[in-house]
């Protein structure tokens, strides 16, 4: 069967052979088809037509079942790629694209960033000898092709799921993942560290850091390049430029222009190559004319050189990195050539290779989408349509954005700042309504915080919406520029607590601890979406000191929203009691209060009635409430979705200072364990952390002396 399928349309083939001279096009296409089929090796001729090379690139047909990937099937580790020809590598790239699209369509995850670096991953693994040579992927959400090529293809359907592959490179997961990533702009620093270690240990491998133009907006990248230029260690930095700086890569109205002046400089780099051409043309012409136009030509050349060196010796060269580019990041042959040449040089020093790619390349729905299908849930490969589950409530992020808009409608001093996360923080909605009051500073949290401090110093009311784990980057600025000077900057920390599929790199475990220890900060956390709206109003009203509030990833519980989404300011330092009971009091902080309520309902079935209170404020604590709970109950349990040193710590500190701990009260604090919780489904993570309603009720029971019953809860 296989033999027959090789000779497609035998009549044409024969006739072209008989008629001399054969038209090259016909022969060429015949040969193309033949060669594709020859490497296919399976009898089903239809499959091979789904991935085929045409004169302007590879075309993949996504409209049916997943096409066969014969070449990719033979590649399990990078070693299997060493002997492939350039055309094989191109075919491999096409098959890799197919694999990624179909795999992510089932599992969800980051799609388009991975599609943009398929050729790069193929070229890197073909030329370099991983795992001895180290490839460090910045951020890491684009590392899916890397994972597929390094022995994890069979597990790709488990990506971002409990006990499955991580969504980002992880050193524990594979020896091919040289450095863990999740936050951006760390790859050059890590790469330089590895390069210097290699030099000190006398080794001889290559270090490659892949960083994107978005990650280049962060200061750490420049700190690293500055140091790299100074240390002059052999290091290859690949700047993957797809002109996407912020996430999502679009506002509500369409594609977002890259934020920052850097992007236009990078664009000029592209233009500069044309001027090199101009210069070459000028040189050759002056040679021909010679003589009398010599002085004029010399002047022209002088200007031209000044012009070329101004755009050629860019920022990177001045920092000490040798610049190569721009290179077409989707041309495997070019990439392979350049990498081989650079690898062969004994002492190139730090080199920056600037490649241009397109996010979502090769999958038309992603190329066309405004947000380029950056992060997706399950979708249909044929159309790119995502299967988003309908929820009765919106996400906390959306409630936050709504209430902030309502506040800003009344008060025109309110402005919002975010760090390249317009979609994730919901501020895209704010931007649509108040375009000149919303600031996207790029991936620059430190700058965002001090920028907000500057705005506050002049009387505006800035709301800084930064994820809890990303705010860690700007922590000194929070202390030194905001808290120390008591400037009224409001921090809206989204993704607080456990975050599910993104894993520990994005987990907001520490914000209660690091915010509540600051002397002037008001720290609060809503237990549901209505409370969130009221806290936005409260924060807007607090104008003499900084304040912050945290809310989790996920959807609201269906609480009754304030009228018109406009919150009312709460009394600062006052919590509330949700359920009355006796003997045991559970004091929750933040959205974990819902788990406490669930636990209390479970306990009711055992005829145990506990008091559930919502602390609302960690700083200043509602000391009256705590004293009351301590007076009226034997047992006090504090619950928070944060690390040690947070809410529970503040409560116990207060109780010990006030002498209550000298008395009969039994105090227990339930916090996140002293370990990093792996990625997975949110409910699984909560279980692993020991903070689910089951764990809370079990704690109550064992404190009441009924430990065996604790095991009976499912």
């Amino acid at each position, binding site marked *: 069967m296989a033999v027959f399928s090789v000779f497609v349309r035998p009549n044409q083939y024969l006739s072209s052979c008989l008629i001399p001279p054969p038209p090259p096009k016909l022969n060429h296409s015949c040969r193309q088809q033949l060669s594709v089929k020859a490497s296919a090796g399976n009898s089903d001729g239809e499959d091979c037509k789904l991935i085929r090379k045409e004169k302007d690139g590879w075309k993949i047909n996504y409209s049916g079942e997943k096409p066969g990937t014969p070449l990719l099937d033979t590649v399990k580790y990078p070693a299997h790629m060493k002997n492939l020809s350039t055309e094989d590598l191109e075919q491999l790239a096409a098959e890799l694209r197919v694999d990624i699209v179909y795999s992510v369509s089932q599992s969800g995850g980051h799609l388009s960033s991975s599609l943009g670096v398929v050729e790069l991953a193929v070229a890197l693994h073909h030329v370099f000898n991983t795992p001895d040579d180290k490839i460090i992927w910045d951020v890491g959400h684009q590392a899916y092709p890397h994972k597929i090529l390094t022995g994890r293809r069979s597990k790709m359907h488990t990506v971002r799921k409990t006990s499955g592959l991580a969504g980002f490179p992880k050193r524990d997961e594979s020896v091919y993942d040289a450095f863990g990533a999740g936050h951006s702009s760390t790859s050059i620093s890590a790469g330089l560290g590895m390069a210097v270690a290699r030099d000190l240990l006398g080794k001889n491998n290559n270090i490659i850091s892949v960083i994107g133009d978005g990650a280049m907006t962060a200061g750490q990248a420049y700190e690293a390049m500055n140091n790299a230029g100074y240390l002059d260690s052999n290091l290859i930095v690949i700047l993957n430029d797809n*002109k996407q700086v912020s996430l999502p890569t679009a506002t509500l109205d369409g*594609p977002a*222009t*890259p934020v920052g*002046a850097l*992007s*236009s*400089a990078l*664009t*000029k780099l*592209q*233009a*500069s*190559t*044309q*001027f*090199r*051409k*101009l210069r070459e*043309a*000028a040189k050759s*012409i002056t040679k021909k*004319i010679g003589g*009398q*136009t010599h002085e*004029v*030509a010399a*002047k*022209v050349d002088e*200007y*031209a050189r*000044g*012009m070329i060196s*101004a*755009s050629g010796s*860019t920022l990177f060269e001045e920092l000490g990195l*040798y*610049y*190569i*580019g*721009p*290179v*077409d990041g989707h*041309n495997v042959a*070019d990439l392979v050539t*350049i990498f081989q*040449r*650079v690898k062969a*040089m*004994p*002492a*190139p*020093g730090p*080199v920056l290779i600037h490649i*241009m790619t397109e996010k979502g390349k090769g999958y038309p729905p992603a190329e066309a989408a405004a947000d380029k299908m950056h992060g997706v849930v399950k979708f249909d490969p044929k159309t790119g349509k995502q299967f988003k589950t309908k929820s009765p409530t919106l996400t906390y992020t959306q409630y936050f954005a709504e209430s902030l808009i309502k506040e800003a409608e009344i008060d025109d001093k309110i402005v919002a700042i975010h760090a390249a996360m317009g979609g994730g923080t919901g501020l895209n909605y704010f931007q649509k309504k108040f375009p000149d009051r919303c600031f996207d500073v790029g991936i620059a949290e430190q700058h965002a915080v001090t920028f907000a401090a500057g705005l506050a110093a002049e009387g505006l009311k800035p709301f800084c919406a930064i994820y809890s784990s990303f705010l860690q980057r700007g922590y000194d600025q929070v202390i030194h520029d905001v808290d120390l000077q008591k400037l009224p900057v409001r921090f809206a920390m989204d993704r607080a607590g456990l975050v599910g599929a993104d894993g520990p790199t994005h987990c907001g475990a520490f914000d209660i601890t690091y915010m509540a220890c600051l002397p002037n900060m008001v720290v609060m956390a809503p237990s549901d979406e209505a409370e969130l709206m009221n806290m936005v109003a409260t924060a807007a009203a607090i104008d003499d000191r900084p304040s912050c509030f945290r809310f989790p990833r996920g959807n609201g519980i269906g609480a009754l929203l304030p009228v018109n989404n406009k919150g009312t300011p709460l009394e600062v330092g006052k919590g509330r009691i949700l359920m009355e009971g006796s003997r045991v009091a559970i004091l929750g902080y933040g959205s974990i209060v819902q788990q406490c309520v669930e636990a209390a309902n479970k306990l009711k079935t055992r005829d145990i009635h506990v008091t559930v209170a919502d602390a609302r404020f960690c700083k200043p604590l509602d000391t009256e409430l705590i004293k009351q709970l301590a007076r009226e109950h034997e047992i006090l349990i504090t619950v928070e979705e944060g690390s040690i040193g947070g809410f529970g710590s503040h409560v116990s500190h207060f109780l010990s200072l006030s002498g209550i701990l000298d008395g009969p009260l039994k105090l227990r604090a339930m916090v996140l364990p002293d370990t990093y919780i792996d990625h997975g489904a949110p409910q699984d993570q909560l279980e692993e952390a020991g903070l689910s309603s089951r764990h809370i009720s079990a704690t109550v029971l064992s404190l009441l002396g009924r430990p065996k019953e604790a095991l009976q809860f499912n």
Partner: protein
Amino acid sequence: MEISFQLQSNNPMLQKARPKKNSHSSYMIQTISCRGDGLESHAKKANFYEVLSLGSENNIDLHDIKKAYRSMARQFHPDVCAPSAKEESTRKFIELQKAYETLSDPVLRQMYDYQLSLADSSLGLGVEGFCMEVKRSIFQREVWEEQLRGLHKRSQTRRERRSMQN
């Protein structure tokens, strides 16, 4: 480039080039300064198509450009104008010449159009479309091949330097 040499050898306007500042960044394309541009045109960036009164539709062919240039040149040549307006007409005529040089050379015209799109659109949007079209001319193999040669030289000198030090 040939045409510009002829122009400049008669023309006393060949001055020291000034780097052209623009709101985007200091890496503003300095082509114009290479042609001995005067200071005036910096103030309002002259659109070559406007200068030749060509309108803004795409795909204006060489014939139209030539026709436009000839008719305007006849109008604005310094010798034709009244003596009082001589300076101004000289300046205008030079502008016309520059516009014609750029637009009549297909390579230069392509690059000029690219510049225009960069200047007109906001930072990234306009480039997208153009990028695709001039993609092949941007990713010139020669560019990075030359860079690789430079890197190879640098690598060799560094190795020599290091072995001398040791």
